[in-house]
């Protein structure tokens, strides 16, 4: 597994570093808003942007038609998928630490290290990254770069349809839906306390990752290269 991870890192190092700095630039700008970006919003966007690092590896492999090379080496497809997930988790953690450090160290930033490096905020950013790459990776393993486009385009279309429906029916179902999720999370938080809630969230993320990993292994096994 380490060999596959090293291969991926060496083959994609420029793209990964470039991604880190491009996203980092935006995050520094965001942290410097005069009115001050709420720390939760900053954590959300950090998580969102750092989720694309792991996806870059699979889509670039597709772009250079290098998947056949990787799968001609003496490794199983399951090992390839496993190494990508481990790498994804590593990149997510490093990416978020990088994003938070940027905001903490940038002279123009309105956010402080004490605000950012709280377990709750780090976990929030990690949750966004994990959920996003857990959603994207099975599609990219099955369909390559097209899988990424497929998920993003489908999400856009579904969002447009949902908003149009809400607008046309003059219903407040969207607001009620979001509110009900918020209430459920709030009630869980009240019942479990901060530590219990964070542990439950970590367990939920681990379960999502495992399900996504299983789906990716299955999807990649069926892919003809």
């Amino acid at each position, binding site marked *: 597994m380490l*060999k596959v991870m*090293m*291969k991926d890192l*060496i*083959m*994609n190092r*420029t793209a990964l570093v470039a991604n880190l700095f491009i996203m980092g630039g935006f995050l520094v700008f965001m942290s410097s808003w005069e009115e001050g970006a709420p720390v939760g919003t900053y954590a959300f966007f950090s998580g969102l942007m750092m989720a694309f690092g792991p996806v870059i590896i699979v889509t*670039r492999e597709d772009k*250079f*038609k*290098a*998947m*056949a*090379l990787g*799968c*001609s*080496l*003496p*490794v*199983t497809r399951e090992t390839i998928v496993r190494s990508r997930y481990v790498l994804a988790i590593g990149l997510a953690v490093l990416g978020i630490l990088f994003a938070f450090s940027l905001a903490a160290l940038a002279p123009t930033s309105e956010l402080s290290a004490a605000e950012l490096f709280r377990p709750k905020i780090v976990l929030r950013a990690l949750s966004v990254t994990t959920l996003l790459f857990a959603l994207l990776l099975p599609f990219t393993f099955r369909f390559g770069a097209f899988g990424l486009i497929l998920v993003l385009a489908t999400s856009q279309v579904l969002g447009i349809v949902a908003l149009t429906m809400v607008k046309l029916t003059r219903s407040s179902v969207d607001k009620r839906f979001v509110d009900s999720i918020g209430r459920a999370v709030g009630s869980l938080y009240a019942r479990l306390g901060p530590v219990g809630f964070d542990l439950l969230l970590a367990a939920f993320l681990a379960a999502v990752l495992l399900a996504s990993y299983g789906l990716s292994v299955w999807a990649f096994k*069926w892919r*003809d*290269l």
Partner: protein
Amino acid sequence: MGSVEPVLDVRNVTKVYEGFTLRDVSFSLPQGYIMGLIGHNGAGKTTLLSLILNLVRLDAGEISVFGLDHRREEVAVRSRIGVVHEVPTFFSSLSVERAAAVVARFYPTWDEAGFREVVGEFGLAPNKKLGRLSQGMRTRFALAVALSHRAELLLLDEPSSGLDPAFRRDLLERLSGIIEGGRTSVLFSTHITSDLDRIADFVTFLRQGRLVFSTTREEVLERWFLVKGAPDLLSEATSSLFAGVVTGEYGFTGLTEKLPELRSQVAEGSMIVERATLEDVVFYTGRSGKEGMKLHGHSS
């Protein structure tokens, strides 16, 4: 010569795509020999090589490599195989030596000194980025990698296309040299049949996803004949004896493996018989009598 143990055994292999099916292909390659895989573009050569590497799923049939199931034992199998893909698949931003170092980690048998030697012989600059190499040079690089982990089976997909004639000849000589020890076997696909005339021990011919034959090169050359004659020799009975015919204004040229039957049906001296080359076999087998007529119709 090596032993007769098959290093590669392909049995009733079928792969169905929309618009193309590789159907019921069987052949075996003994250890220490070179087999050429020939056929027109789209005949299924790359699909077959991808199936052997388990890059593509089998719909039916079995493939065993070194006596091992190519799916269940894929790591053991692939660690003993060297591959050159039709389209070189390395990232273009890496240098020659960096890309090789990435691959070398996967092979305990990697011979770094051997790699450097081959790179030098192939005229590759170790620091040059792969993206700046020509197609032929990238193929040379892929070959250098395939040759440097002491593979026991080399699978080469059109390795000689894109190479200049001098290097192509050098490559063929190198492949001949590799099998001399009897340890390594080579399966390479090509549409340049003259390459096979030089080095192939066995020839496997695919046409439109079906196996036409898989046999020794000598047998192909002994079995097939090119027959030329006047158009009136092509009766319904004689046409059926040809695997392919191309007709012209003043005569026809046909490929047959049924020369005695043909001779019994036509007058002595009314046709010219020549031994067919591999190129003739590939060219004419691709054309039925009717297609030959059409071809003539278009060209005249």
